[in-house]
């Protein structure tokens, strides 16, 4: 996503998105590249463990080839990025991990943890209300209204139309759906 006031010329922007400029290292970039390299090495070791150099058609050959490529390319990327000057205008706090990104990631993890015990409807309501309140900063009434509207819409579309099964948790969902079905087929029944 580009800044609305700039002409998006792919040749002028760096391939990082959002932010970043060519020929400059972003904060934390070398660390990320190093982590990628170490992870690639671990995967290469694990690939070697599959079948070693048993045969060219062995199950471990392609994993070894690909992880070797990963190690080489990750090494090249790290080598290149540590030689670039660091971009002093960017900070981790502002450009890499802004407050909102951290909080929303935590909210997402919280959602995943609560989904099964609490059920889809209460967890989603909680998530939407907190996230929209935090990002939009409108009154609680507006936040509640928008969240409820969105949740009802999502629920109707996905639970009824797409028949996606979500954990019910503490909500007596089966009865609710029966009620809606009765309502919809009221005339025909």
């Amino acid at each position, binding site marked *: *996503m580009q800044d*609305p*006031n*700039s*002409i*998006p010329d*792919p040749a002028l922007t*760096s*391939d*990082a*998105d*959002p*932010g*970043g400029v060519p020929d400059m290292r972003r904060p934390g970039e070398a660390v990320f*590249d190093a982590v990628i390299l170490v992870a690639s090495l671990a*995967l290469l070791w*694990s*690939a070697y463990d*599959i*079948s070693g150099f048993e045969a*060219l*058609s062995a*199950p*471990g050959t*392609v*994993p070894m080839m*690909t*992880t070797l*490529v990963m190690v080489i*390319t*990750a090494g*090249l*990327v790290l080598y*290149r990025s540590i030689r670039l000057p660091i971009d002093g205008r960017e900070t981790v706090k502002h450009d890499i991990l*802004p407050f*909102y*990104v951290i909080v*929303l*990631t935590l909210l*997402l*993890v919280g959602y*995943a943890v609560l*989904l099964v015990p609490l059920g*889809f409807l209460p967890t989603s309501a909680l*998530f*939407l209300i907190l*996230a*929209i309140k935090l*990002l*939009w*900063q409108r009154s609680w009434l507006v936040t509640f209204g*928008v969240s409820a509207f969105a949740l009802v819409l*999502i629920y109707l579309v*996905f639970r009824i139309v*797409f*028949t*996606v*099964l*979500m*954990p019910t948790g503490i909500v007596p969902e089966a009865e609710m759906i029966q009620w809606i079905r009765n309502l919809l087929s009221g005339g025909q029944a």
Partner: protein
Amino acid sequence: MDALLNFFMVFTHPQLLLLVGLGTFAGVYIGAIPGLSVTMAVSILISFTFSWDVLPALALMIGIFMGGVYGGSRTAILLNIPGAPSAIATALDGYPMAQRGEAGTAIGITTVMSFFGGFVGIAALAIAAPFVSGVALAFQPRDYMLLALLGILLVGSLSGGSLVKGIFAGAFGIALGAVGMDPLTFTERFTFGVPLLQSGISFVAVMIGMFGVSEALAQLHHIDTPAIKQKITRIVPSFGTIKKYLPLSLQTSSIGVFIGALPGTGGDIAALMAYDYAKRVTRKPARPFGQGAIEGLVAPETANNAAVGGAFIPMMTLGIPGDAVTAIMIGALFIHGLNPGPMLMIDRPEMFWFIVGALVVANVFMLIFGLTGIRLFTKIVEMPRAVLVPLIMLLSIVGAYAVNNSVTDVYWMLGFGVLGYFMRLYGYPLGPVILGLILSRLFDDNWRRAIISENENLGAFFHGIFTSPLSMVLFLAVIWIFVSQTPLVPMIKSRLFARTGTDGASK
């Protein structure tokens, strides 16, 4: 005759017709809303249509695909924010037009030209695919392996940015696809002794994470950017205008089909190349390019919609996706028990003709929705990101959960979402990861088949490559990408010259 019957199936089944229409409608808006991408929408939809019959599911996804490629142009014109990568070139002349108050004209021409390009692409698909799949039957396993490699490399090298990072991403995707039990020998691969990993990582979870959550997290950087309002007047272009640009649009559509049909290249590359082409062949544009030339709108928009039909050619006949979106479409076909490749055209020709029919319908719907409903459109595009982002996240979670009814997939999805976020920030392309993941099986199986048929002899394997014209061409193409895209050649040159230079200085 059967082909014709299957082709018209979409037209005669109101339910399928409705789904294509619904999909196209959703696609136009999803493509247009900055922050929502077709890739994201299709990957989330796969999980929701998982339990459906294959025809309705395909009808919906084809609609979204077709509408989404077009929808990206809307925001490119109105806000100078390409809603999709294939609309980057559209913004170059579309936004200057909007600034002059000609947004309506720009949108009208874009819509009609997208429709035109779309038809050229579909026609090419209908004519070329049966032929290509006939040829594809003669492909050796090594050819499939090389094609898969070529596709991943092309996505990595052309998606903008560093080829090294692209290759890393592709290799990472292939490795991810290998996680779990090896289907041939039942050896565990990359399971680290964890029983959970034996069945592999759900590719839907990876896709939603990489294109849904990571995109949503990246959007948080722009949460405070206000929506820009635009007034739009007359949309439907006059017949004279269309006639004037018809020759150019035919040429750029052909470029679109060709680029789309190459494995690994899709609408974004096609649009940029067509834009470049139009710039070179247009002698006297009414306005210079970059300042609102209509040719600069016609070229990319015909090309990127023509590329849709083009991209379906390798996807349907070889099982090799053209770009990230087609990779996800292949994933969708897999999930519904279809195996894209030359055998699909022989075993299930009805499927192919159904898809062609659905594409035609989607193209028509695109024209209708493109020229109407502009007021609703401006309302939806102005939807605040602060509401949109939590909604995308919620849908991502529901989608990841829905495929296997498992919370584990949700954790995978979140993990890959965070990884994808950092990969975005540090310039690693995500397309090759998905392409590698989808093509992992095909690559691995065909490599092993090829090498077993040569009795494990690497020399004989290369001898086979060098003596078959097709393998040779594919092999040379792979080599060419390396040579042309890596700084290896200039690096060696500069080293050599630097040495002679210093030698000269020391003497």
